[in-house]
């Protein structure tokens, strides 16, 4: 598989703070790479370094096999960026905004026109072409922000938290759009602190914290890193202490807790854990209402790796 981006030993410090600490990773052609980490973990800084907006202290970055530089226009031509902040002109309407930014890449007016049309369709803003940014709701504004970044059909797309503070409808629209872009062959780098999005979208995930890569790999591979296999919660009325102690001693059980008539059990590994539990409850004549079994999430992985939650 071809590497689109290669980052080696990237380090960036702001005065005292090490924002990016000796980062090395690649982005493969055609994949969606998720950069997952809490606020301030260095995701945006990494992207800004890759884009040659920021000076960095050490390391090398190459895109499409060439070294990335501020005036590497051949590389830049193939890149589309959607920044975290909405970056559009207040004075221009939706269409003109896209036309301006697209025009920085595509000189041919006719081609640009069809590209803008496609971008508008992709983000679902066809009916808002003549609207000014001020007239758009937060979600629609985000969609415009995306359209401005990807209208020129780049091969490599950076999306920096495009769904922050976006309503569910717009969010779905945006996520669908990203998948469409990938289907059309684009390579995408996606940063977020929403693990659900990453799980849904990304082929590969880098988990960042304090400027370092904590783990990387596919969704499943990352989850395999977790010590736990399964999390079970059961609604049980007035469970006695002795039962809890007994359950604690079951095979594979890592931890048991009982709160507000809810019994939580985490299993380290193994199969048929739930069946075993149900059998036991039946045997003891304990009534239970609802039972849930969950696979570990990336949050659990993150929690195990750092001792803190992704979202704080």
């Amino acid at each position, binding site marked *: 598989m071809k590497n689109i981006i290669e980052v080696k030993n990237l380090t960036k410090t702001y005065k005292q703070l090490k924002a990016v600490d000796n980062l090395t990773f690649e982005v493969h052609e055609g994949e969606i790479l998720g950069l997952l980490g809490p606020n301030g973990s260095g995701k945006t800084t990494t992207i800004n370094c890759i884009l040659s*907006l920021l000076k960095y202290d050490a390391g090398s970055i190459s895109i499409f096999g060439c070294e990335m530089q501020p*005036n590497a226009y051949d590389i*830049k031509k193939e890149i589309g960026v959607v920044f975290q902040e909405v*970056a*559009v002109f207040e004075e221009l309407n939706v269409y003109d905004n896209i036309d301006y*930014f697209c025009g920085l890449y595509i000189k041919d007016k006719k081609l640009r026109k069809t590209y803008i049309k496609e971008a508008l369709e992709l983000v679902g803003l066809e009916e808002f072409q003549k609207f000014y940014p001020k007239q758009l709701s937060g979600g629609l504004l985000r969609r415009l922000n995306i359209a401005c970044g990807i209208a020129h059909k780049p091969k490599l797309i950076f999306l920096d938290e495009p769904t922050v503070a976006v309503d569910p409808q717009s969010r779905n629209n945006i996520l669908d759009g990203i998948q469409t872009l990938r289907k059309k062959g684009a390579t995408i780098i996606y940063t977020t602190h929403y693990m659900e999005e990453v799980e849904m979208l990304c082929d590969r995930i880098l988990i960042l914290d304090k400027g370092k890569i904590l783990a990387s790999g596919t969704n499943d591979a990352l989850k395999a890193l977790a010590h736990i296999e399964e999390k079970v919660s059961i609604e049980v009325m007035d469970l006695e202490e002795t039962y809890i102690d007994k359950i604690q001693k079951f095979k594979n059980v890592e931890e048991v807790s009982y709160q507000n008539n809810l019994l939580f059990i985490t299993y380290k590994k193994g199969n048929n854990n739930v069946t075993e539990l149900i059998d036991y409850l039946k045997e003891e004549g304990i009534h239970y209402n609802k039972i849930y079994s969950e696979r570990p999430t990336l949050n659990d992985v993150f929690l195990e790796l750092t001792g803190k939650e992704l979202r704080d």
Partner: protein
Amino acid sequence: MFFHNFKYTFLTLFKNKMLIFWTFAFPILLGTFFQMAFQDIENSETLHTMNIAVVKTDTFENHNIWKETIQNLSEGSDPLFSTVYVNEEEAKKQLEEENIIGYLKLEDTPKIVVKKSGIYQTIFKSVIEEINAQELMLNQMIQNGDFAVDYSTIYQKIEEITKKEAPILNISRANLSYTMIEFYTLIAMAALYGGILGMTAINQVLANMSHNGKRVAVSPVSKGKLVLSSVLASYIVQLIGIALLFIFTIFVLKVDYGTHLALVLLLALTGSLAGLSMGVTIASILKTSENVKTGIIISITMLGCFLSGMMGITMKYIIDKNIPILNKINPASMITDGFYALYYYDTLDRFYFNIVSLLLFAAIMVMISIFYLRRQKYDSI
């Protein structure tokens, strides 16, 4: 690409209502106010006919020289006096009601009565002194025992002298209307306000200044090209504003820029360039919000205009006289002084000195901005 960015910069600047208000409409409004307030000032400051009264006394009736001189001075198309001859009571009443500035009562010695001190009262007194002097001259001639000539010949001789113009030659320059300075500072203000346009345009293409700038920075267009086309677009917008202001001041407000139209144009172009370069410099060296930058440009401009006489024309003179260096580095003063030199002086040395100063100012500003604009990567965004 150059034109694409140019077109959109132009569009965004024009659609920014606040920007257009401050750079286009505000100078025109202010100019209108100036015109309304100042149009009559200089006229009011010239000497007008003053209303006086003369108390009818026997002495006055008997002294021809007094009677005739006052009468002469109250005649003609633009006389010095408009005189009424009344009794003392009436004169007092007129004075109290301020219908007259004062009255003359001629008995043994001339006496004038006024309500307050002032320039008109002084002139009134001065003229009375002069008539008094003439009478003294007359008496002197008679006393000199020059009886060979008869009274009427002497009187004629005196009249000859008093009516004759004194040997004074006025060599003042023609254009002395100092309120013009107000309008020149107005042009200076508009030219420097143009810096806000340049600042806004530049901010939009700098990655460390605006979000849009980041987007532009990752596009495959060279920064130099973008900056240049943005600057050019704002310069054109600025010049359109200045042109409108010129048209308005020349045709509606009747401001006199002197006779060298081409040089006026040259000054407007260089002045705007100075304003633009200042805006670009402030855009590229300061890392604060656009509002703060606008505030800084407005403050610098208003301070500059204040020093070059916008809020009181004498201020420019006071600075020029006492702290000349301050106005030599003040672009608003360079522009104002350039127009002044064109309007008032025949020679162009002073005008060109101002043009060169403005170009130098712009060059320094451009050099500073280039130093900062050359950076392509930033320490922080």
